[in-house]
């Protein structure tokens, strides 16, 4: 019988793909090394992480006020603020802005939130040509694939695969030289920037006191996307608002170090509304779309609220053992890795009932999170939600807790009584000491034993304890040493 499509299937496929395994391993080791180096050379890094945690928590605790202040500030700069309850509303707002501006082409900066709301197909359905301009996003758009990493969306491909893709899709001569590949993309993209009517980006933060939108990038494509087209639209999750520049500085101190191991990224833009009279560049119109899509629900839950501290740096992905093997596509969500496991069931309609269980509980993610999100704790809370509610997060999904409610009750009944517990172990030991039968009958164990020799059930320790205890007593009397 085939399994329900979900993380188990997708991750199994990933494990069987030797090229993908090699690409993932080399990428995450590279990112791990870079982050470690950056933090080793960053005095006060622990205090900086504390500060980000506190700054984000403080902002989240007065989110409605900050958002209203942000709206006033952006409006005062001549921009327009739009509120979107969910992805569909956000996409409709964008389509309307495009229609009003009589836009026919859009260029985009890398933005996870626009992946979250599936903006590209929505704009294409509204008749626009949409071009991703971040190199990695451009690659996966050409390949027709979703991103597989929050910070490095094409991390599942190596340069040979990119060379083949460019040759096939762009008619370029095959090369696997990164500089040549970048130049091929740049030549194509440069024309698009100059022709585009609409520039769409996400936002790393927006500052309530000034209305400034903060955008962090390495390629300059976001600066192009926000200045070359007539209209700039930034789409931002409501949790990204910060009070002012001091809080933005706290965030910037850890963001690039955590993401790519840089002290600062190559470009950090502070955009204060549309072009004003007398200014020579900048978009003529600026729109900020504030997206909820489940965030207020998360905010209202004291156990889950901390996930909204996330800066989207991707550091937790890079140290996650499951990510290293399964790759980002296994999550079936733009948000993958540990933070994807936490966000995917909670955002929008919510999906990924099996995701919280696709975690070994190793805790590596919590060690690197720049905002000190207790990712393992949130994942445990989501496991409990899935166990207590068969409809969480999506009643249409199968999978989820490894133990059914009935199995859990039976286990408690047996483990609740030492006699029963011993008898059960003894029965298993008599009937199936090498667990050969169990391995054949239980589907889960069958897969387990494909790569492992099951352990043998042994005479329990408790049975040998009385004799050992006498022996130890004698030993202790002799002074502890035999």
């Amino acid at each position, binding site marked *: 019988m085939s399994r329900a499509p979900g993380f188990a299937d997708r991750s199994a496929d990933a494990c069987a793909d030797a090229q993908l395994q090699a690409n993932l391993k080399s990428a995450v080791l590279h990112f791990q090394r870079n982050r470690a180096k950056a933090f080793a050379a960053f005095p006060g890094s622990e205090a900086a992480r504390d500060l980000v945690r506190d700054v984000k928590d403080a902002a989240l605790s007065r989110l409605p006020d900050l958002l209203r202040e942000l709206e006033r500030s952006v409006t005062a700069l001549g921009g327009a603020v739009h509120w979107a309850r969910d992805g569909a509303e956000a996409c409709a707002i964008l389509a309307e802005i495009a229609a009003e501006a009589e836009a026919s082409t859009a260029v985009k900066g890398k933005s996870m939130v626009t992946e979250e709301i599936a903006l590209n197909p929505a704009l294409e359905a509204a008749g626009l040509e949409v071009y991703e301009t971040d190199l990695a996003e451009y690659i996966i758009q050409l390949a027709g694939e979703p991103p597989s990493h929050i910070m490095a969306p094409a991390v599942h491909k190596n340069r040979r695969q990119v060379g083949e893709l460019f040759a096939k899709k762009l008619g370029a001569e095959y090369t696997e030289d990164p500089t040549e590949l970048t130049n091929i993309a740049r030549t194509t993209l440069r024309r698009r920037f100059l022709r585009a009517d609409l520039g769409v980006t996400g936002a790393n933060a927006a500052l309530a006191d000034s209305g400034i939108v903060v955008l962090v990038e390495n390629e300059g494509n976001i600066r192009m996307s926000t200045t070359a087209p007539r209209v700039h639209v930034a789409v931002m999750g409501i949790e990204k608002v910060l009070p002012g520049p001091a809080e933005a500085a706290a965030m910037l101190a850890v963001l690039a170090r955590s993401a790519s191991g840089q002290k600062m990224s190559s470009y950090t833009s502070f955009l204060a509304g549309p072009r004003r009279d007398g200014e020579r560049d900048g978009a003529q119109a600026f729109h900020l779309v504030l997206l909820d899509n489940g965030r207020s629900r998360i905010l209202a839950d004291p156990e889950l609220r901390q996930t909204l501290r996330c800066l989207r740096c991707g550091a937790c992905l890079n140290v996650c053992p499951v990510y290293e093997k399964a790759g980002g596509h296994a999550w079936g969500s733009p948000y993958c890795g540990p933070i994807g496991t936490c966000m995917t069931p909670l955002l929008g309609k919510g999906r990924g009932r099996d995701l919280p269980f696709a975690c070994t509980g190793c805790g590596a993610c919590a060690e690197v999170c720049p905002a000190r999100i207790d990712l393992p704790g949130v994942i445990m809370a989501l496991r409990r939600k899935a166990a207590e509610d068969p409809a969480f997060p999506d009643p249409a999904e199968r999978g989820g*807790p490894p*133990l059914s409610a009935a199995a*859990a009750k039976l286990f408690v009944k047996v483990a609740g009584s030492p006699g029963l517990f011993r008898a059960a172990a003894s029965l298993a030991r008599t009937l199936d000491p090498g667990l050969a039968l169990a391995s054949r009958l239980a589907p889960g164990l069958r*897969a387990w034993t494909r790569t492992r020799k099951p352990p043998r059930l042994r005479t329990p*320790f408790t049975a040998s304890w009385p004799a050992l205890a006498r022996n130890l007593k004698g030993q202790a009397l002799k002074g502890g*040493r035999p």
Partner: protein
Amino acid sequence: MRPLPARHSGDPNPASDPVRVQLFVPCLVENLAPEIAEATARVLTRAGAEVALPPGQTCCGQPLYKSGRHAEARDLALRFLDVFSGPDPVVAPSGSCVAMVKAYPKLLAHDPARAEAARALAGRTFELSQFLVDVLGVEDLGAELPMAAAYHDSCQVSRTLGVREQPRKLLAKVRGLDLREPSRPAACCGFGGTFSVQFPEVSASLTAEKAADLAATGAQAVVCAEPSCLLNLRSHLDKNSPDLGIRCLHLAEVLNSGFGGAS
């Protein structure tokens, strides 16, 4: 909370007033690796402790808790509180089971009286190496094991409990032991309990990589303070590379070597 037993000067041969210890035997150890419990009891005794085995032990509830079945895990947590209600420190040769006990206060938060008892219990529950080094102040147990060994930092021991130095301090004093560090000591072995059954391909892939990294050190033995990692690695090595002859030893077995433990 009851004060911890006083530290002594590292003398594994105290003259009087031994520290009493309640031995917590994880159910995996009880039924799949009883030699680990025996070695633990012997090592604790040599370190000067008087070991008792509180009767009625079954399971700490970890598989239920990690499956999201908190209501059921709570029942076993309450049982555990009763079994280990004595005032003496509780010691287990497992990081994950100790971590489970440390999670009891949160699990029982709805019941202030039991939560308080759980906090006290969590405060007096220790992983073996933590107890030997931090509480008893013992590092040299006189063990001798002439072989090359690679230490695997179990995630539950090293990250959840923060126990990284204690096992290394203890192993550094084992005569003849040539301790080798794998290239990725902090990488997970891929077990994760029910994770390995639910997502066997990812798990197997991680275990294979971990085993290869440990084997690449040229070690003849893998040493770990967590029985579940050991059973996982042993199952993998037994199936895939029995010819390497790499042994999977619990820290307690190594510390008991030369005294009827590993040799």
